[in-house]
Structure formats: structure tokens, C-alpha cells
């Protein structure tokens, strides 16, 4: 289940714009399912229709890219994990952006998809370099907290706890959380409300 994520190297796809919300990444009608299996066709579907083939996810030069380069507050809005799941189904394995919405970021971590942030200028530069040369390989190195493309090397940011979880391969925390069940029960026992009301009776 758990695997180390230290470095991602791939072609990249630039997606320009601030505040791109999860309703745009995957419209709610695609959430009407009890699995994540069929999300690929829904990724950015309305934006893609509106742009009639000109959306980066449709442009031939970006097919096969595994790194998505975005701007500010990407993934804001709904908590739907369907959004990163849909991106992953399209092929995205890592994101670089100016900033990410909190819940989206957490969902990506839980799926093993690192989201690193960089200064607005750096992100702009990366997007321009990729647009000028879509074949260029972008490398995100989580150990050095750097991104590289051609001659450019820039620093990126990821909070230390999250970074070490990726590097150690413990980004899927479920196993660790479950293993601590005794401590969990001890913590619960100290919380007064656990014993109040009939919620605790069952």
C-alpha cells in the first residue's frame, strides 16, 4: 500500500488561472457513483467543452504529462476527493502551484500525490518554459525541495511533516493510525464528552 515518493520526473501540463475550484475539476454530476472508476472522462469536462479542444488537457502536446503546474488556490471549494482522483486518472502524479486549497492538498497527500508550492514568479516561469517546450522534462525533487527544467533549478516548498511522509513512504497514514488504537482509546477516555449523552450508549 505504501511507497516512497522522492522524485517525480515527467513532461508537465500548465493550467493557467487562480482559484480553480473542485467543481470545475470534476462537476458534481460525476460524483453520482459509488466508485472512483469512471472519473477520467469528467476531468475539467465543462471547461474542456467550452474551450473546444484548446484546454491543455486536450492539447496533443500535453498528453502523457504527469505533472500539473497551476497558479493560486488550486482545488478550492468542495472537499470531493473525486477531484484529485480524476486528475490521477488522467495521469497526474504531482502538482506544482503558487498555493493549494487545504482540503485538496490533504486529499492529494492521502493519495500519494505531492503538491509543492513555489513563488508566483517561479510558477509563471515554469509554465512559460513548458508552453515553449512541451517535451521538456520537469523534475520535482522532494529530498532537495527543488524543481528542475532544462537549465532552471528553483526551490519549492512543502511542510516538513508532509515532505517526510512522502520520502519515508508513510503518506498513507491509515496503517499507522490504526496501529495506535490503544493510544486513541486512551485519548478518547480523557475527553469528558465521550461519556455524555446517549451517543456513547451503543
Amino acid at each position: 500500500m505504501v511507497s516512497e515518493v522522492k522524485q517525480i520526473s515527467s513532461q508537465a501540463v500548465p493550467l493557467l488561472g487562480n482559484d480553480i475550484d473542485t467543481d470545475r475539476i470534476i462537476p458534481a454530476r460525476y460524483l453520482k457513483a459509488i466508485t472512483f472508476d469512471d472519473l477520467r472522462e469528467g476531468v475539467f469536462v465543462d471547461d474542456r467543452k467550452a474551450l473546444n479542444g484548446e484546454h491543455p488537457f486536450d492539447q496533443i502536446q500535453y498528453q502523457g504529462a504527469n505533472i500539473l503546474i497551476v497558479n493560486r488556490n488550486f482545488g478550492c471549494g468542495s472537499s470531493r476527493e473525486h477531484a484529485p482522483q480524476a486528475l490521477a486518472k488522467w495521469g497526474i502524479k504531482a502538482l506544482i502551484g503558487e498555493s493549494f486549497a487545504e482540503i485538496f492538498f490533504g486529499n492529494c497527500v492521502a493519495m500519494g500525490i505531492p503538491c509543492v508550492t513555489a513563488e508566483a514568479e517561479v510558477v509563471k516561469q515554469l509554465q512559460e518554459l513548458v508552453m515553449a517546450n512541451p517535451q521538456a522534462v520537469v523534475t520535482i525533487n522532494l529530498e532537495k525541495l527543488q524543481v528542475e527544467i532544462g537549465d532552471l533549478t528553483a526551490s519549492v516548498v512543502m511542510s516538513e511533516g508532509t515532505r517526510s511522509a512522502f520520502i519515508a513512504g508513510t503518506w498513507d497514514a491509515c496503517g499507522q493510525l490504526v496501529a495506535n488504537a490503544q493510544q486513541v482509546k486512551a485519548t478518547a477516555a480523557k475527553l469528558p464528552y465521550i461519556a455524555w449523552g446517549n451517543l456513547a450508549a451503543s
Partner: protein
Amino acid sequence: MSKGTLFDKVWDLHTVGTLPSGLTQLFIGLHLIHEVTSPQAFSMLKGRDLKVLFPQRTIATVDHIVPTENQARPFRDNMAEEMIQALEKNCQEHNITFYNIGSGNQGIVHVIAPELGLTQPGMTIACGDSHTSSHGAFGAIAFGIGTSQVRDVLASQTLSLSKLKVRKIEVNGNLKPGVYAKDVILHIIRTLGVKGGVGYAYEFAGTTFAQMNMEERMTVCNMAIEGGARCGYVNPDEITYDYLQNRDFAPKGADWEKALNWWQSLSSNPDAEYDDIVVFNAEAIPPTVTWGITPGQGIGVDEKIPTAAELLEEDRLIAEEAYSYMDLYPGQPIQGTKIDVCFIGSCTNGRISDLREAAKIAQGRQVAAGVKAFVVPGSERVKKEAEAEGLDKIFVKAGFEWREPGCSMCLAMNPDKLQGRQISASSSNRNFKGRQGSSSGRTLLMSPAMVATAAIKGEIADVRALL
């Protein structure tokens, strides 16, 4: 780093330990689930051969996909039926309490948990829904999570998290007539931006919030997430305790006294330290309407849609996108914008006090010709209460449709959808592109009273003229 705030205290009390990564393992006191984001989590549990660790601390309801007209089973929409069946089966298998349609307690998850008294001060609350921030109104630390995290809570009653910073948002003074809790939060988001809260918990403080009832506080905390803050909260006080006393799951007897003492000890200390403080004057807040495609693109009802030049450079690109998508022009007054559909409801504004305010506007008036207007109570209890007060009759007489409870056209996962380029006045929380069920549909967010005003006038109009 914040110190001595309610957020710090509740965080520390729920900390199980530090994981090897350095992230905190945080105990979740109340877990709420619904049909949309839980089925995959239950499948993941099964795939890993895990059980639900504290089944009695998870509560389920069905809200997103429920039809608001004909709720007879099986639902006409096969996928909706499949989703409710999956939830029924998962709850039964794992011994989780499920408030189904007709139970008397079904409704939008963020409406029912408070009304049942499940939501209490000092709790940590998680739900696979971003508007979980609503529960912060009680002085709980409540936030939305994704499906893998729903799995983690089911399996361990905990989450792996990094601590947020705390920003105190102080609003002081009296709101002017026609200005509601919704306007306060739209104004805050307009000012601080939709990403202003990223990395923060918002503590809503000051005399304005102190005077608000619990439902108004819920409206404010509900939309903290629209300002980028994963959670927002108000310190608990007498208004909180009065609301909770005698509710189904509230502590009783000697426990109630203990609870009061504990809750009082959790409020932010007078000398608490914050990572940031922002102060607003309530009297300067106008009835607010959004004109664009993010909840931060709001203006006073008297104002004109801003030109790109009036905006910060970083906000111009999305403004250009909004002018084009909304087919509204910079410099155009928002008042007078023609409306096709009016929606009153949602976890933001589908509670009894919201319906009362809207009914005051609707009473004795008529929905404008050509406008479709409908009211969706937030829960079965809200519906029952509204009907006992005769609000349904006021709405129906005025030409509004009176529906069954659910999330409805807030996100349009049920049959309630905009058609084509229809434009709606909505008491919900998101005006994102395509949000209300049509990929070209348009949404203007505002208070329920302003939605009712728009319904009567057939266009965006100032609620103050109808008070």
C-alpha cells in the same frame, strides 16, 4: 504561533500523538457521513480488512442526492437509488446510526447534527464535506475531509494532520436592518479573498458575533471554507448553551453541569495569542451580492460591478473570466440584474430562522412572472417547524414552491438544476461555474431575504425597500 485560543486547547486535548512524519494524530469526536463521499471509503476499509473502530461516533444521513419533490423509493434516478442503498447497507453492516428519509431527523448533515445536539463545544468534528466548518459555530473544531480521510476516521477515529494557524476576525457593532449573517461572511470573504484563509482557522469574535443566534453563527462558520479557512469557530457562550440544553444528544442532569464547566474552560483566553487579527465594523457592511464565479467576487447591492482596474492585479484574470461567463459588465450596477430562478435553502441558509426572514419578505407579495422560486428546508425538523408556523403557506401563497429537505440546487446532484444559461439568486454558498447543474448556469449568492426580494422583483433588488 497561536497560544491559549480555543483552537489550541481543543487541538491539544484531541492530540493522540506525533506520527513519525511529524504530523499530529488527532482524535475526531464526531464523524458525520453522507451518501456521496462515504461509499468508496467503506470499500477501502473492506479492501484492507479493517473495521469501524468507534461505530457509535459516526452518524449518517442522506442529503446530496435526495429529490425534493417525489421522494418515493426507489428513486427515479437509478444512480441516486444505488447511492442511498449503498449507505443503508454500509450503515447496517457497520452498526452506524442512519437518519434516513422519513425518520423525522433526516436533512442536510450540517443542519441535523446541530439540531440533534450532536454538535457540541470542544469537539473535533469531521465529515466528507467542506461545509463541516458550520459546526464551528458551537466552539468545535470542525472541518471537511476527503474520502481517504473518511476511511481513516472510520478505521481509527483519527486523522493525520498539521496544525493550522489562527486568525481572529473581530466584527464589532450592530448590523443595519436588511443586513444578515450571510452578508457578514460575504463581506469578510470579499475583503480577505477566497484564499486569504488558507493555512488558518478563523476565530469569529467581537460584539456582532456575540449578539448572533446559533443559526446566524452557523451561516458565518459555514462559509469560512469559502474564504479558504478549513475551519471557523465562535467561542461558546450562554447563547450556545441555551441552544443545546435539552436537545436529543446534549448532556443531561449532572453531566450538563459538568459540560458547562468544561465548555467554559475552552474559550480563548483574554490574553490568547493569534497569528493574525483583522477587525471589521458591522455598520459598514451592506446587503451583499456576488456577481462573479467565486464567493469573493461580492459587492454591496448598491454598488457597481468592479472594473479590472479597480481590482488587485492578481484578481483581474478571474474577474475577466467572470465578466465573460456571467455576461455581466464591469461598471454595471448589480441591482436590476434579471433573475430566472430563486433558491432558498442549503447548509448555509436552510434553517428555520432563514426561512422566517425570507417569509417576512414573501408575505402578502407575489413572485414575479416568469421566475421559478422554491424553498427547500434544511431538514425534516426544519420543515415540520416551518409548517407549524405557517411559513409554507406564506411561501406557497406568494408563488414559491415548498419542497422536501435536502441539499437540492446548492450543488444540483438531485433533479433541481438550472437549465442552460439561467441565472439564479441563491441563498447557497458557491457561485462556481456550473455549480447549480448547468455547465453554463449562473449563480448570484445572497441572504435568504435578498433571494426572496429578487423573487418578488424578478431582478436583483435591495431588501431594505421591502422591510
